[in-house]
């Protein structure tokens, strides 16, 4: 096999089956013309070095094949913003569901192994995430190929009036924040209502349970958590802080502050179930109370921050109403 045949063969291997023979035939004819031109210019047959130089000038067979039959990306650059948005939500929901699943397994386990639970969460997320990634990419590829993409994905039919009123970077609610909040609420709801979903055997293995003092507040806590889930879903559908959203966030955070401050002041948060345990319940109580207090203080900061943001948005609206 001479150099030219070797080269043409290498290019053909990189081409789609249907185009191989035709492009290979044409490329060979063009290269032979170039070699003929060398013959005409120099008056001698093209040497192996001449052939090699001509072929190298054409480029690597993979590059040459790519020029003849360019590879189309699975998702075009025009669709990339919509693809990234859908992908982030799909992966976020996957993480949320995986957290709830791992949380259920963790709480139902007879031995609490935090590290093992975290590794299970990570492994489960990677496994499900890979499936979600492939599915979303395939859906975009097939929808774009068949021309069935909805208008919003390709930004067709948009109106400037429909753009959100957003003047500050902080007004954009990050998807990661929403997912974290929803995961947290879901996990705490599972924890609070563990008696209704845990197996009898697992319940009997529990070493500690909520004290009667805190149990009295759990229905209120549950209502607040459910309201937070609804609020989180609303934020996911319109991820921009508005005055109304800030007001509601201040309200829900204030209620959480009250509850967590009450928890931090209760005499006992957890009690022994009677099953032998090596846990020091007094220290566990102190730890949880301290955690409740710290979280309440953090939420006070969030209320203060949101109140400032609310005032800023109010001032701007007043400013807009004043004629120039």
């Amino acid at each position, binding site marked *: 096999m001479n150099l030219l045949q070797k080269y043409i063969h290498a290019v053909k291997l990189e081409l789609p089956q249907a185009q191989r023979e035709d*492009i290979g*035939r*044409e*490329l060979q*004819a*063009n290269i*032979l*013309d*170039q070699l003929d*031109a060398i013959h005409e210019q120099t008056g001698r047959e093209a040497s192996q070095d001449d052939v090699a130089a001509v072929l190298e*000038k*054409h*480029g690597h067979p993979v*590059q*040459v094949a790519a*020029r*003849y039959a360019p590879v189309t990306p699975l998702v075009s650059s025009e669709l990339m913003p919509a693809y990234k948005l859908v992908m982030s939500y799909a992966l976020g929901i996957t993480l949320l569901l995986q957290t709830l699943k791992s949380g259920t397994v963790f709480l139902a386990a007879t031995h609490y192994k935090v590290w093992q639970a975290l590794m299970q969460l990570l492994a489960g997320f990677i496994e499900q995430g890979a499936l979600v990634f492939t599915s979303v990419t395939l859906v975009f590829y097939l929808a774009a190929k068949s021309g069935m993409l909805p208008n919003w994905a390709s930004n067709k039919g948009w109106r400037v009036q429909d753009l959100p009123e957003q003047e500050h970077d902080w007004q954009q609610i990050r998807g990661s924040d929403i997912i974290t909040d929803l995961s947290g609420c879901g996990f705490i709801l599972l924890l609070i209502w563990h008696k209704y979903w845990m197996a009898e055997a697992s319940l009997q293995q529990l070493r500690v349970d909520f004290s009667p003092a805190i149990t009295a507040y759990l229905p209120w806590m549950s209502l607040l958590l459910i309201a937070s889930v609804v609020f989180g879903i609303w934020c996911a559908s319109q991820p921009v802080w508005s005055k109304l959203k800030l007001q509601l966030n201040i309200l829900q955070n204030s209620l959480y502050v009250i509850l967590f401050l009450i928890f931090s002041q209760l005499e006992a948060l957890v009690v022994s179930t009677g099953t032998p345990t090596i846990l020091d319940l007094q220290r566990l109580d102190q730890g949880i109370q301290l955690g409740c207090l710290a979280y309440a203080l953090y939420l006070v900061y969030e209320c203060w921050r949101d109140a400032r943001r609310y005032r800023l948005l109010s001032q701007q609206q007043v400013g807009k109403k004043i004629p120039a």
Partner: protein
Amino acid sequence: MSEDRLDKMRLELRRGALVLAVLGSLRQAQYGYSLRKALLDHGLDIDEGTLYPLVRRLADQGLLDSEWQQGVGRERRYYTLSQEGVELLEKLTQEWQALNGTLTTILETGR
């Protein structure tokens, strides 16, 4: 300005014009190498790796007709403008002339 940046800008500038140059040169039938030579004779040096795939893409779009012919010693694929290509070339030429006029004015005014 670095040579690298100049090369990139030049490539970008030439990309659209190359299509027009190729279409304009294929009013008469040409095969790959003869087309390259014809363009070179007019002062337009196009790399083979760019020109040949471009010609094929234009043919795939229906702007060129092609035919294999047996030449002296070997076969060659000849390309020529299709009816659709002729119509497009006419419109693109008008577009080019208008753009060229505008650009000339802008560049002269800026001096």
